[in-house]
């Protein structure tokens, strides 16, 4: 898994490519929670190139969501591939997260 970050408007885009499996969740945690700790609480996770997500990584996304919300920010998800969309629907996490077709839509909604 690789993570690249960039800024669009007043949002921090966290682009996650590859597999967000259990061995990648520590890196994901550092990227998301590190951003929030440094004051960037308006986060958009670009999942267009993410081909796998396990429950450990889902837990990291939820933790980041709670921390960002607690500081007046957000964590939005964008560009999910069909398998990830299905995981979100299966877990009902699509009821927790705001999910967008692409990063541009997520940033525009912020």
């Amino acid at each position: 898994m690789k993570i690249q970050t960039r800024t669009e408007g007043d949002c921090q885009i966290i682009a996650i490519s590859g597999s967000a499996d259990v061995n990648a969740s520590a890196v994901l945690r550092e990227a998301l929670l590190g951003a929030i700790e440094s004051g960037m609480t308006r986060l958009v996770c670009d999942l267009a190139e993410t081909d796998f997500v396990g429950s450990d990584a889902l837990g990291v996304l939820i933790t980041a969501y709670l921390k960002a919300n607690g500081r007046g920010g957000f964590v939005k998800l964008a560009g999910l591939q069909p398998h990830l969309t299905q995981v979100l629907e299966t877990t009902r996490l699509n009821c927790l997260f705001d999910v967008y077709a692409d990063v541009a839509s997520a940033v525009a909604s912020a």
Partner: protein
Amino acid sequence: MTANPPKTDDLGAWTERVLPTSLTEIRGTERDVLMRLRELAYDDDHLFAVRLALEEALVNAMKHGNHSDPTRSVRVSYRISPDRVEIRVVDEGPGFDPSQVPDPTADENLDKPCGRGIMLMRCYMDKVEFSPRGNEVFMVKCR
């Protein structure tokens, strides 16, 4: 370990690995299983489902079963035919009662960071059975 050695039948031979309790050990098993699924031309939906369920089962066994104790092992066995995949994961922990695991899709649990592994295994596999003690899970995915 409580499971008897897997027996061979018309589904072919079992492959068995004994993994130390270390999450970094999971990828090798995942890679081997996925490679064999690809060789048999399973589609992407099956690959995703089996990978997800296998990872969740192994993570549960190491974290919750063996309590991340590096002196304990996890035994994973699998056999793959053109028609089905069978996976068995056994840990050395005391076991648990899966019926007591809260429903992670309930409104009050949606923002809990943990507790989705078993539900995902049940949703993505065709059959998921735990031993009475709860330290062993057997999963089947049909083509």
